[in-house]
Structure formats: C-alpha cells, structure tokens
C-alpha cells in the first residue's frame, strides 16, 4: 500500500484539501486509470462517502476505472467530423483493433475513445493519437497510421529541430487564414489572434517563424498565465483536446497551410509546441 500512499499525500501535499476532481486527476495521471483502492483512499482522506467519489469518477469521460492502453486514440464524432465520415473512421479503427469505443486492446497497447469535437473542425474527420493530430483521415490510411503508431511515433521524432522556417496558419475551426502581412516580426508576416486572460481581452500577434516564440500583445501578459486564444474571424475559441507535454495547459491547434497542424502551448512563457505535418511528426 506504500507506493500508493505517495500518490495523494506526497505528490500532492497541498492538494489534500482541494477538490475531488484534482485528486482524481492526479491519480489518473499517475496510473493512467483510477484503481479501486485509490478511490477508497480518496473517500477516506476527503471524508466523503465512497459513492460520491465513485459518482464523480464515472461521470467524467476523462477518468477511467479500467486500465488504459499505452496509446490513446480519440476519433472525433463532432458535428463537422460526423458529416465528413467520422463514424466510418471510428468503425475502421474498431475493426482494425478489434475493440469497441471505450475499450482497450488485450495487449494494453491501444485504447479507443470517441469524442465530440477536437477543435479542428476544418480538418475533419480528425483523429488524435497521443496528442498528435491526424487531419482529413482517409479510411484506407487508418491501418497505416495505427501501424506507424505501433512502431513508435517516438522513433520518428526529430529530436532537436533547430531549423527556423515560417509557417502559414489558419484557424482550426473556420479555416480562415490568420496571417497578417501588414505587420512583421522576424521579417515575416505575423499570426494575428485575439486573446483573453484575467478579464482582459485584446489582440495579439505571434511570430510565424517556427521556433521563434516572439509575441506582441495589446495587453502585456504576465509570465505563466494561461491565455485563451480566439479566432479573430469566427470568434471560436481555438482549443483542442490535447494538453501541453511540458506544463499541462491546453494546446492551441492551428492549421498549417499545405497540410498539417501546429499546436502551441497556451501558457505564456511555456515553449511547449508540437508540429504534425501530414503524419510526419516533428516535435
């Protein structure tokens, strides 16, 4: 029982008093699922009836009571992806893996879930595997993608990418270009978005050079603030399902012209980002 003790008290010393959800999130992050004994522990430590904890754990899709696989595949069944064939993609994945949505393969390699919108409707049907976007998924390629993931997405990562190159991006919801050529940073047109944080709302421009991280904002953004990004054209919030690998804030997906998706961390100062170019992954 000793290694479990750590999960709440030591890993989250100041969180014992905070809400059940945070506790469960910490456990889920540690084990990949919520083991039974841990739920009993949470109930004991928060002084709440077990059934309340269990109710929360079964209510949220983010929590799983059974072990999840090493890779998590989320197939989008949101409206936009649905009309573009999301359900057939889901069926195909189910067929290939031999499991239903919500289940895990016997070898614990893959878990499949269906979600309602991953924030990249313009690229539907969308599939996300371990945080990497696979846009405009074709049924014929599903097998190939899963094979590649099996071999290890990691091995195909280019470890440090020092190249600096400009990207041309558009909103992942409406596909309207976000480029603004009236303004330049690093000698290239900027990416224009609107941002909101701490009751402030304003314009912000980002350098379009991949790896530059330069931003200029109407309101100065304090370090470490998590900012909400909005498309200046369709006003939808640019938010996907993925979380930053470095700090855990949510990632902001944008479509790269020519195919692919770039995701940047929404926390000021965090350099977490991810670039998927049509299946080729450069981290």
């Amino acid at each position, binding site marked *: 029982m000793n290694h479990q003790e750590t999960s709440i008290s030591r890993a989250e010393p100041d969180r014992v008093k905070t809400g059940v959800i945070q506790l469960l999130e910490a456990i889920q992050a540690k084990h990949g699922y919520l083991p*039974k004994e841990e*739920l009993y522990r949470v109930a004991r430590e928060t002084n709440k*009836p*077990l*059934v*309340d*904890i*269990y*109710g929360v754990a*079964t*209510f949220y899709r983010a929590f799983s009571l059974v072990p999840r696989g090493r890779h998590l595949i989320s197939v989008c069944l949101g409206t936009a992806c649905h009309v573009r064939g999301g359900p057939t993609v889901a069926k195909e994945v189910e067929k290939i893996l031999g499991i239903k949505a919500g289940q895990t393969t016997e070898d614990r390699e893959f878990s499949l879930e269906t979600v309602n919108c991953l924030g990249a409707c313009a690229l539907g049907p969308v599939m996300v595997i371990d945080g990497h976007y696979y846009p405009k998924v074709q049924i014929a390629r599903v097998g190939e993608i899963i094979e590649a993931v099996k071999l290890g997405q990691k091995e195909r990562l280019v470890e440090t990418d020092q190249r600096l190159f400009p990207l041309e991006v558009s909103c992942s919801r409406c596909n309207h270009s976000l480029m603004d050529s009236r303004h330049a940073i690093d000698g290239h047109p900027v990416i224009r978005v609107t941002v909101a944080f701490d009751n402030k709302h304003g314009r912000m421009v980002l350098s379009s050079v991949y790896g530059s991280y330069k931003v200029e904002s109407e309101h100065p953004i304090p370090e470490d603030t998590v900012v909400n990004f909005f498309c200046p054209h369709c006003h939808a919030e640019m938010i996907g399902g993925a979380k930053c690998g470095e700090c855990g804030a949510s990632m902001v997906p944008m479509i790269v012209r020519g195919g692919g998706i770039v995701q940047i961390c929404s926390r000021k100062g965090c350099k977490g980002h991810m670039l998927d170019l049509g299946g080729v992954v450069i981290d």
Partner: protein
Amino acid sequence: MITLHINGLKVQVEEGTTVLEAARFLGFPIPTLCHMEGLSPYGACRLCVVEIGQEPNSRLVSSCTFPVEEGLHVRTASRRVMRARKMILELLLASCPQSKVIQDLASEFHITQQRFRQEYEDCIMCGLCVRMCKEQMMSGAIGFRGRGQKRSIGTPFDITSDVCRQCGGCIYVCPACMLRCTYTEPEKAICGGCANISIPCYVKDQFKDMMCYMDPCVACEIKKD
C-alpha cells in the same frame, strides 16, 4: 414575511419557503413525485411545474425548488401548466409503466395512453432513495453513477456497500420499482427471496433495534415467535 399571489389569492408566507409549500399550505394541490418532506428538494421529476409571472412573460418552474419572491404571481393549474404536466406524466408512463404511483397520477390527470416509445425502466432517476440514504439514514451507500443515458443509481462498483445499513429506506421511498414485497409469511411472499436472505436485524445483534422501513417484513414475524 413575503407577499405573493397564488391563483389570484394574496398570501403572506415566511421567507425561504418554496412555492410548493406555500401553495399546499393554501390548499392548492400540486402533484409531486421526487419531493418528500424531510429530504432536500431536488427538482428531478418536474411534475410540480407551476407558471410564474404575468402572461406574455410567464414561465414554468418547478415549484418544489423555487423559493417565494415578493410580489410573485403563481398559477398552479393554468392551461399551460396542465399541458406540461400531462406531457411529463406521459413521458414517465413511457419509461416506467409498471409503477403504481405513476399509474395513479396518470389516471388522476385522465391520461389513458402515451405517445412515446414504450420502455420498461425500473428507475426514473428521481433520487429519492439517494437522498433518503444520505440525509435521513446518514449512510451514503447508494448514489448516482455515470452520466447521460448510462446514468444509474447504485452502490460503488456494484458490490454490496459496507456502509449500507440494510434499513430498506431506499425501497420504501421508491415510487417506481415497487420492489418491496408486503407479504408477511414466507409462503405467501411473491418470490420467497426474503425468507432465504439473512436479514441483518435477525442475525446480528447490533441491528436488533435499528430503525427500519421494511415493515411488514418476514424478519419481524420470525422474531415475534
């Protein structure tokens, strides 16, 4: 004190009372299903709808959860209310037709058939049992699990809860399942199951005098002789 109008009648009630309590106090009947005195209001069944406000801007609210407001106009049986109530009853009938409580309510409102796909659920998610367990029995053995279509009431992990006191309070308040078998002799019981399970008050000393809702129950009969 707060002054409001119920069906045109001006009344004064204590602050914090609900519209349901005020209307019942005046003698206006409002049907309820998920409301029970002694349990916190929950607003699950919507059967207690009333119309509040003046005509073009009036709206329907559940009276069991709506606290009285100064100058509020309430109608407990307007045409709109009756239509909504009948619809709710039809929906309840569609999901749980075998419930005696729902059948009685339906006949009271002259509903003889319903227009929806017939289902045979044994729970309408009114949450009475959950509140009973938590608020009256101080136990918290059962609760809501899951969400949406898969929402259900039960114990964690579907195993017998170690905090359940086997008082039967949940069965007692349930308007839908009618699980409680009211026969007192094993041979006459519907399934005879109760005669074969070990009833805690009978087998364990510490439960001898516990509060129990299972009256009449085989255990009491056995204990008597």
